[in-house]
């Protein structure tokens, strides 16, 4: 189930037409006014990213739409692509005009291959309508087209530099940053990587105006956000909220009662206990790429972390030490806790290791993989330590 999304009110091509009429400088100025931050999770200001890529010299710049959507509990990008693909392509086209790119790539999660035919059909129609190809959107000399490339199935390939490696036909492993993709991206050229939702909102911003967008949300987190809500609730689905919405309000909307905790931001996100349900979903408080998983009173929080840690042990690319080895240690720790065999001393060592992983891992995966472990240890120590009684004096 889902709420009525703003996207349904947006005419296809509308955003591109406004943007194309204005031109590069206008687009960048509008995005600056809109003040949107990326919807993929990291929340990097979109106008800054576009400006950096626009400032880079040389031809061959790329716009990559990140539709890898691998974070457990997210499915909002899938919904957008199946129902509002045109708006996403509008957003890519606008970004291309802004930075001077001639090529767009939609990096589609492997499991979404069933969307491929429809998406290709949309692209074909856009070519016929003059929205892609030579002098696209009626702009002299703007030869922009979009390719679809299938993802390889690895979660880490959603990380922008691993995604680029994967596009180049390599092992999907994150790169060292800096240099960033806006400077040295796909094939070494300046590349903008944006989330599906980010690009869709960009199209809305040009259709409805920057002021409309920045009038919503909080001061630091403007605009609307889609949340994929799953877990122990009556009405899971994709919902649209202004940023700054409280967790309690979200829970009410989805019909979740007696919730014990909410995992915001997927496996790599934070686990928020009931006593903190007044916290806001916003970049300045609890940030999320869109995943919200509700845990009811009966959930075993150790099971929850066990699942997440297994996920990370599965998904780490394995190049850097803290993540490759650290996740395994944390998973072992969870299993020791479950068996009542983890001493307080060792648990402390593991928490300290988790903090190291957050700062010393090479990419966002390893930097966020200990989050769930650390927040469960912090907020549910009674529940998880209960099992150590007797076995550790």
């Amino acid at each position, binding site marked *: 189930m889902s709420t009525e999304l703003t996207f349904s009110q947006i005419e296809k091509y509308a955003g591109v037409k406004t943007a194309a009429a204005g031109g590069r400088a206008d687009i960048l100025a509008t995005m600056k006014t809109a003040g949107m931050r990326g919807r993929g999770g990291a929340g990097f200001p979109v106008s800054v990213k576009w400006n950096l890529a626009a*400032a*880079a*010299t*040389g031809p061959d710049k790329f716009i990559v739409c990140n539709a890898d959507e691998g974070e457990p509990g997210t499915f909002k990008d899938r919904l957008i692509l199946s129902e509002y693909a045109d708006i996403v392509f509008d957003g890519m086209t606008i970004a291309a005009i802004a930075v001077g790119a001639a090529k767009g790539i939609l990096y589609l999660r492997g499991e979404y291959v069933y969307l491929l035919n429809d998406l290709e059909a949309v692209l074909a129609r856009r070519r016929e309508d003059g929205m892609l190809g030579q002098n696209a959107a009626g702009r002299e000399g703007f030869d922009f087209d979009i390719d679809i490339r299938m993802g390889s199935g*690895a979660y880490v390939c959603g990380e922008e530099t691993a995604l680029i*490696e994967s596009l*180049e*036909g*390599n*092992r*999907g*492993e994150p*790169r*060292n940053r*800096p*240099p960033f993709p806006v*400077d*040295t991206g796909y094939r*070494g050229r*300046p590349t903008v990587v944006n989330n599906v939702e980010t690009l869709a909102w960009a199209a809305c911003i040009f259709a409805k105006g920057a002021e409309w967008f920045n009038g919503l949300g909080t001061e630091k987190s403007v605009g609307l956000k889609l949340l994929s809500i799953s877990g122990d609730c009556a009405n899971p689905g994709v919902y649209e909220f202004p940023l700054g919405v409280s967790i309690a309000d979200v829970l009410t909307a989805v019909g979740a009662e007696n919730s014990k905790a909410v995992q915001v931001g997927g496996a790599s996100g934070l686990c928020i206990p009931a006593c903190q349900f007044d916290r806001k979903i916003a970049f300045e408080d609890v940030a999320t790429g869109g995943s919200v998983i509700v845990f009811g009173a009966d959930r075993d929080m150790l099971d929850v972390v066990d699942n997440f840690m297994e996920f990370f*042990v*599965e*998904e*780490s*690319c*394995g*190049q*850097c*030490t*803290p993540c*490759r*080895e*650290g*996740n*395994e*240690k944390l998973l072992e720790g969870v299993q020791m806790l479950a068996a009542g065999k983890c001493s307080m001393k060792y648990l402390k*060592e593991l928490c*300290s*290791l988790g*903090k*190291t992983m*957050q*700062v*010393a*891992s*090479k990419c966002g995966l390893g*930097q966020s993989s200990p989050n769930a472990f650390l927040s469960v240890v912090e907020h549910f120590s009674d529940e998880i330590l209960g099992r150590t009684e007797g076995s550790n004096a």
Partner: protein
Amino acid sequence: MTDNINDSDRAPKAQRGQVIDKPDGVDAIGAQITITIDDNEIKVPMGTTILEAAKTAGIHIPTLCHHEDLCVAGVCRVCVVEVEGQRALQASCAYPITSPLNIKTHTPQVRRARRHVIDLLLSKHYGECYACFRNNNCELQSLAKEYGVDFFRFGHPEKPMFEKDHSSYSVVRDMNKCVLCRRCVRTCIDLQEVGVLEAANRSNETTIETFQDRPLGDVVCINCGQCINRCPTGALTANDPTDEVWAAIDDPKKHVTLQTAPSPRAGIGECFGLEPGTPMTFEMNTAVRQCGFDKVFDTNFTADLTIIEEGTELLLRLYKALVEKDETVALPQFTSCSPGWVKFIEHFYPEMLPNMSSAKSPQQMFGALIKTFYAEHHGIDPADIVSVALMPCSAKKFECNRPEMTDSGYKDVDYGLTTRELAKMISEAGIHLPDMPKGDFDAPFGEATGSGVIFGATGGVMEAALRTVIELVCGVKVEDLFEHANILPIRGFEGARMVELPIENVGPVPAVLQSLVPSWDWLKGATLKVGVCHGTANAKKVLDDIKAGGAFSECHFIEFMACPGGCLGGGGQPIPTTPEIRQARAKAIYAEDEAYGIRKSHENPVVWELYEKFLTDGPCGHISHKLLHTTYTARGKYL
């Protein structure tokens, strides 16, 4: 020497680190940026990494996956530092400075992270230092010491997880000791363009594998051992024959000879704590005798012989091509003394094998002579001779086991020892090498020239060849053209280089060559073009250039060395290896050359004696062809 990083195309690109580019649009390359590092303000050029900057400020940051010869990986995370304004720590080896930064290199958070990285690595590291070839020479061990590891915070494996791979004649792999720094992977791809090693699987199942996880002996490895020299741990070692060599020494019936190549002398001191570039030639002779070898010979002797044979072959090719207009003659001629290079061309450019000189390497020429000429003249049954070669090289171990290397009727060379292995034998014998009195080489193969010595450095073979060709063809002294007979334009460490030498005048043809060429007149006014390259990644560039009809296709003669720096940087040399260490070894080699009374191969009297008494039909004659020349196998991707 890392100029070859970014355009190798044989190996999977993903296995390469990312090269750090200066940011686009900044035309301030070379511009200075002021940074603060542990409260020291310093100025560094744009694009300098934090690690390099710290070094210039005299601040030590520990590293593991970083290596000066290789592109950036940034995977071990032991070099992390705090950069003000950034939430996460940054890998200093991978962070190019493009704006003023405030850096702290040893905050509590940094120290904790480093300790954790070491603890995590040790939790997967199966090995006992006292039973490890890298004991006291291991970067993981040093890190553990530096960070005061006194217990295994996250456990320690109790049994091995991988079987050792002994399949290769040259390299032994023990993945139980691997820390996944990927230096070997980058070496094999970036420096050598071979690419038989790659990271396979993901997460905690990541391993370094060969193609299809086959034994190393069954893949297209060229045995160069460059990966051994860059492995921080004991995961990669050379195939060590010292037990067999000791057994031969201890067997009174056996006559054990050791021939010693020029590069080990320039390096072996490093195994005894001496500064790189401290030559130990004559101390080593004494030590070797004390170990129990019956004779110690100088491989430089057959280096001189190689020059005569290979030089004659070149002149014959040129004569056929230029005078007899024989279009089937393959030019440029390629040198053939580096067995890693030989295997490289056999695998990857088999169609160019006709360009290879048929001359054996000095090691194998020597082996063939010891069990024939030497045995005969000293009344020793060749079956009782155990011929050992001290080489800077791991590929020599493969070379001496090639089935075609039995022209003496026996295995021409029985064992190849690396510099590291001989150092171990010397230590085992209770000898501290630097304290040894000096001793000479044994006759009859003790006489050598400076030209033989410089075989150890990239460009050395070519310089030696030019010294001889200039004198034999032009009838002038090398000294008339180049001060002190040092042909400086051919020296240096540039990956691939070319030199042109106009032949203005020609002299008379020396007696030994008169049966082959009547006169040199056809060379008058010609320009001899020669090339030099080292590291097989550069070899690939040169070969591709030749195929494309580029500048190198106009060369007459090209020296190829598999290892960066030439033999002095060989896979059997002391570890570590860096550009500075290789430069220091090169300096020692060129100094030794200058110290020789005779500097030119063709002036080695014993070489001519050998032609008189034994190789009686002269250079490139039948006898020499049987003993001193060989053939190659077009392997392609097969073994």
